């Protein structure tokens, strides 16, 4: 089992790329470590696919350099890079069968026939397609095509495997299964994976680290946990999961505490790490996740901070119930998620309730 190390595998140094007037990638800096599962996450048109194509060599940067495994890639064509790409459309060669597709990259390396056959079988076993050697490309399902595309890329033993939205063509159930399989596969082979996706859930479940991209820039590069619990900006916070926002004022910043006027939550003292991006005193946005808010069902239940509100909508999901709650002093209804434990009732629309929270669950955003 491979673990990501601190040694850099892909270094992206001040890379820019424009198409006509559009700056698709705008001075991006990032270091992707050896053996890690790295995701480029962002909405469509944020430049994530362009960045992937720059790493694979299908596009050349206007400015900046890309270094892979210590080697500058400025003059290196895609066929000589230590990277392999799994295309969004999978790009399975339609006139070749599974075996010929997988062996395609090996044939020119002077590898013997027996050796090729052995490696192909090994790869097909790895992606759970053993026995499909002679199956023609057109007779494969979406999930099987993807496995062939993976095997075809991995057989090249690349230093970096690039995946361009590899799961977006699959239906939900298969996608969730493939997420787990891909993660397991990455651990088995120990190769650095760089995944491009617009699906935040996919990025969170699979990655060691995620770079969130907006408008050709990396907005935040962090681990999934950090990204979810400590997003730097309001935009990142609303892109990843659900976040409630309260307009507030940052009163005082000291080395040990932050004093914030957080609308209906009142004056709150917080720890410095609750402000991921350093801000000056003034108007700020205070964020809180739905699961950090609690409906206080009985008078006996107490919380550090309490507010009252009226239920405007309920959405029952079986294991969870999502409430929309109107609270005085907050423009938009606040979302509260509650686990449906035994004996806990589901509140009706129009009911008045107390909502509780702890001050350590608040985040200050720019």
């Amino acid at each position: 089992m491979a673990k990501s190390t601190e040694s850099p595998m892909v270094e992206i140094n001040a890379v820019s790329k424009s198409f006509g007037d559009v700056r698709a990638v705008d001075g991006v800096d990032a270091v992707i470590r050896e053996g890690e599962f790295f995701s480029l996450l962002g909405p469509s048109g944020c430049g994530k696919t362009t960045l992937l194509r720059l790493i694979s060599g299908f596009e050349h940067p206007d400015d900046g350099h890309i270094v892979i495994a210590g080697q500058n890639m400025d003059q290196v064509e895609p066929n000589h890079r230590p990277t392999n790409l799994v295309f969004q459309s999978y790009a399975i060669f339609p006139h070749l069968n599974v075996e010929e597709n997988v062996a395609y990259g090996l044939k020119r390396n002077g590898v013997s026939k027996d050796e090729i056959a052995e490696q192909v079988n090994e790869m097909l076993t790895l992606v759970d397609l053993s026995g499909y050697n002679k199956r023609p490309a057109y007779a494969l399902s979406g999930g099987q095509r993807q496995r062939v595309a993976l095997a075809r890329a991995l057989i090249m033993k690349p230093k970096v495997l690039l995946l361009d939205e590899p799961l977006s063509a699959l239906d939900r159930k298969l996608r969730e299964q493939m997420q787990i399989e891909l993660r397991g596969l990455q651990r088995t082979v120990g190769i650095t994976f760089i995944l491009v996706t617009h699906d935040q859930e996919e990025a969170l479940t699979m990655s060691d680290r995620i770079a969130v991209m907006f408008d050709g820039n990396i907005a935040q590069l962090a681990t999934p946990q950090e990204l979810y619990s400590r997003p730097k900006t309001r935009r990142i916070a609303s892109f990843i999961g659900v976040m409630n926002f309260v307009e507030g004022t940052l009163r005082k910043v000291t080395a040990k505490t932050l004093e914030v006027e957080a609308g209906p939550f009142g004056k709150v003292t917080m720890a410095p790490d609750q402000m991921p991006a350093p801000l000056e005193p003034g108007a700020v946005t205070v964020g809180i996740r739905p699961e950090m808010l609690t409906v206080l069902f009985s008078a006996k239940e107490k919380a550090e901070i309490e507010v009252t509100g009226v239920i405007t909508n309920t959405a029952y999901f079986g294991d969870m119930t999502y409430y929309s709650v109107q609270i005085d002093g907050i423009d938009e209804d606040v979302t509260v998620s509650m686990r449906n434990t035994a004996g806990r009732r589901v509140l009706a629309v129009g009911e008045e309730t107390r909502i509780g929270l702890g001050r350590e669950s608040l985040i200050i955003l720019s």
Partner: protein
Amino acid sequence: MRGAPRTFTIFVGLYLVFLYAPVLLLPIFAFNDSAIIAFPLRGFTLDWFIGLASETTLIVSVQNSLLVAIVAAVLSTCLGVLASRASARFDYPGKKPIMSFLMLPLVLPEIIVGVSLLIVLVQLGVSLNVWTVILGHVLICMPFSIAILLSAFNNMDRNLEEASLDLGANRRETFFKIILPLVMPGIISSLLISFTISLDEFIIAFFLTGTDTTLPVYIWSQLRFPSKLPGVMALGFIMLILSLILLTAGEYFRKKSARLASTETTLNKDADHG
């Protein structure tokens, strides 16, 4: 309401009769045991077909025609591959006008093409032979080749080419191992259709042929001798059958190429759902 379809049926019926009845005369008189092309029919004979075999000028003209058609089909397809690939894959200045000029012979009157080529060739002091006919035929076959091949190249998923490069193949290997096999049905279709066009072509061949007559020019020259007419009918019948076979085969491969492309496109659409 019922009247309209009936009028339409009659119109289609008449249309088909005018279009194909003259062609039907070919097999009828090709097998008729009389030197005069007129009804009533006399009897069944294969003499006209057998007689063809002893016409040496005919044999020579068939050989010329086959040479012209094969070389013109190969040249026009090769040039068509280059033009279509360039147009489908790359952007270059003047792409649209260049492609339009290549397609122009499709609408230019052949007689104009024939006469102008003749004038130029004579001015250059080139002697007329099969090669000048080939030159003219490549010119008029090219638009057909390009039309067929361009759709074959355009329908190919560009990611396939990138995937090949990504797996370590260079551009040459990618062209021969991935691109060429995928556009092969288009290439075969282009070869067959160019061959058929060249084999039947008369006007340009008539101007540029010199002493190396092609088959259509030979047939035209035979029309002056009434006694040769049944033989011409027999010959025409053979050519009709041959053309039908070639065009059907060409169409089969063109459709196959379109089908191969369409399965790929559906897949890509799936992938684009995001």
